[in-house]
């Protein structure tokens, strides 16, 4: 089962110029390719460039130099509107701080990505209600984020990341704000998504979290210093279940 890579980055550099001569190389020449269906964890000490890398993979940020191919497309030079479209169609995001929209209900939050794809709210309702069901919040459709626990909010975020049926899901420390029990629930959910074929890239500094991935990219000072595969464990179990 050899699949082609959906992410390929070449010599990506991200440089921040701070006042005066001072500059930071958040990414200092990174080459990575990630095949479709892979579950990748990015690890490394704080400040090593993990978030920067993920943001570039998510087309939220542009590299200072280097090339980024998402599927067949070179997205490193795309205009802003096209990047919006790429994010809206092909990428699902899960953030550390959930980032639900406060004035919207659970179901409306899940509908947001589809809304920007031009689907009206009536048409997307059934599908989004199903997704809420999938993450165990079928009975909370009309609650607002501030009426939910952190774990529940993050599950809404998972459902939201699935709404547009993306190629890959990017998660920046998705369990960082959760206690270990709800963290494991969310990770199980993400594992299940991967078992169903979604490509996952997840930033964490927790070894327990990273162990669930197929592959670990370890970063240091803006570079990937180690790139290794985990021995097949939970992922193979998940496959047996599926």
């Amino acid at each position: 089962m050899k699949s082609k890579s959906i992410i390929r980055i070449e010599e990506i550099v991200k440089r921040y110029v701070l006042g005066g001569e001072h500059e930071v190389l958040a990414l200092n020449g990174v080459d990575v390719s990630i095949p479709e269906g892979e579950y990748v964890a990015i690890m490394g000490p704080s400040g090593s460039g993990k978030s920067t890398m993920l943001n570039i993979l998510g087309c939220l940020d542009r590299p200072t130099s280097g090339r980024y191919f998402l599927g067949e497309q070179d997205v490193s030079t795309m205009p802003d509107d096209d990047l919006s479209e790429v994010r809206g169609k092909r990428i699902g995001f899960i953030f550390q701080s959930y980032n639900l929209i406060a004035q919207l209900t659970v179901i409306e939050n899940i509908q947001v990505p589809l809304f920007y794809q031009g689907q009206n709210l009536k048409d997307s309702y059934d599908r989004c209600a199903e997704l809420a069901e999938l993450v165990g919040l079928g009975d909370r459709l009309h609650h607002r984020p501030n009426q939910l626990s952190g774990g529940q909010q993050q599950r809404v975020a998972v459902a939201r990341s699935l709404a547009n049926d993306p190629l890959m899901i990017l998660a920046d420390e998705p369990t960082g704000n959760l206690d270990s029990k709800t963290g494991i629930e969310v990770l199980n959910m993400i594992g299940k998504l991967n078992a169903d074929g979604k490509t996952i890239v997840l930033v964490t500094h927790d070894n327990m979290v990273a162990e669930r991935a197929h592959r670990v990219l370890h970063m240091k000072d803006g570079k990937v210093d180690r790139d290794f595969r985990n021995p097949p464990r939970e992922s193979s179990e998940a496959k047996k279940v599926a």
Partner: protein
Amino acid sequence: MQRSQFISTVHLGVKSLLLHKLRSGLTMLGIIFGVCSVISMLAIGEGASYEAQEAIKKLGSTNIIIRSLKPPDEASDSGGGGNFELNYGLTYEDGARLQSTIPGVVRVLPMRIIRENVRFNVNLIPCQVIGTLPFYPGIVGVDIVKGRFLCDADEKHQQNVCAITTALASRLFPYQAPLDQAVKIAGVYYRVVGLVQELNTPDKRAQTEDPEGETLDNFVYIPISTSRSRFGETIFRGSFPNIEAESVELHEIRVKMASTEFVETAAPQIKNVLNRFHDQGDYEVIVPLQLLRQAEATKRIFNIVLGSIAAISLLVGGIGIMNIMLATVTERTREIGVRRALGAKKQDITTQFLVETVVLSVGGGLIGVLIGVLVPLMVTYLADMKTIVTWWSVAIAFSISGAIGILFGLYPATAAANLDPIDALRHE
């Protein structure tokens, strides 16, 4: 963007605004006051000028009024007392000349106006006795309430008959039916043949100032032929030793023109004709149409001034909206970042924030229109001032409020859209 999507965006805007009810309410207040003041100020201005214009209109926009004036230099001469007879003013000849020389003249109405006491039994009331022709009501604008006005036979035979105003009738005849009663004026009895009501405001008439400050509406109409034969051309006023004798043939001439087009050209022609025989400036020409135009011009200036004051308050309201929207954008930077991450284009963000400001300003506009229509009603009720809410003031106020929403929303909305997605997401 599809229609349903636009509706959803409006819905979302309303929702976001409802999240901060107090703040949104206060922000709208500026627009509410602005729109309300535009509408009510214009309504009050419109009402004030309406009454003045109506009064002028009743003088007749096709009429030209010519009045005899006491020449100023001679008036001071007679100040020393003595029986100096003043001879001035319009003549029957003038009337005939105007009728025959001015193009567009339909009729020329002569009037003699003499102040006399009118008596019935013990009631003695100072009045203005107007000698005139039977077609007076058609030109001056008079309602015949009861009986009839003067007729051609009255004129021809110098009958001692009169028509009186209803106001005078109620004072002269508190208990009797006025018709066919005989009233005494300067020693002669006149039979009352009709009750009339002037549509015109009485204070527009010449020489109505009464020393006692009353009787303004007390008019007695008699045939002009009767006036001439009973009172003669020379009129005495005042009491010994300060008797003034005036010889005035006609106190007023009303010229009715065929249409308003003739009116303005006729005024200078009338002066030309009259000046040949009046070198001492003993008459004045009043053109109601010109007064009307002046009143309209005054009204326009009034409206502009009131309107600009109100517009400034709308502007202040708009700045208030912009201020709040800028704060909102800062406060919701994170939300903007999330939306961008989830596929929103810059345009979507612009639209979202623009819709919110327009909802604020149009919502404020609607409430402002409601209050703006109610305030003039209250002013009319409490201060007894006429007010007129015109549809155009509502339309203007409302569309300005909408325009302000767009104008002052544009900057915050584009500022929001131009945030870098990643910067917006990182914002605390």
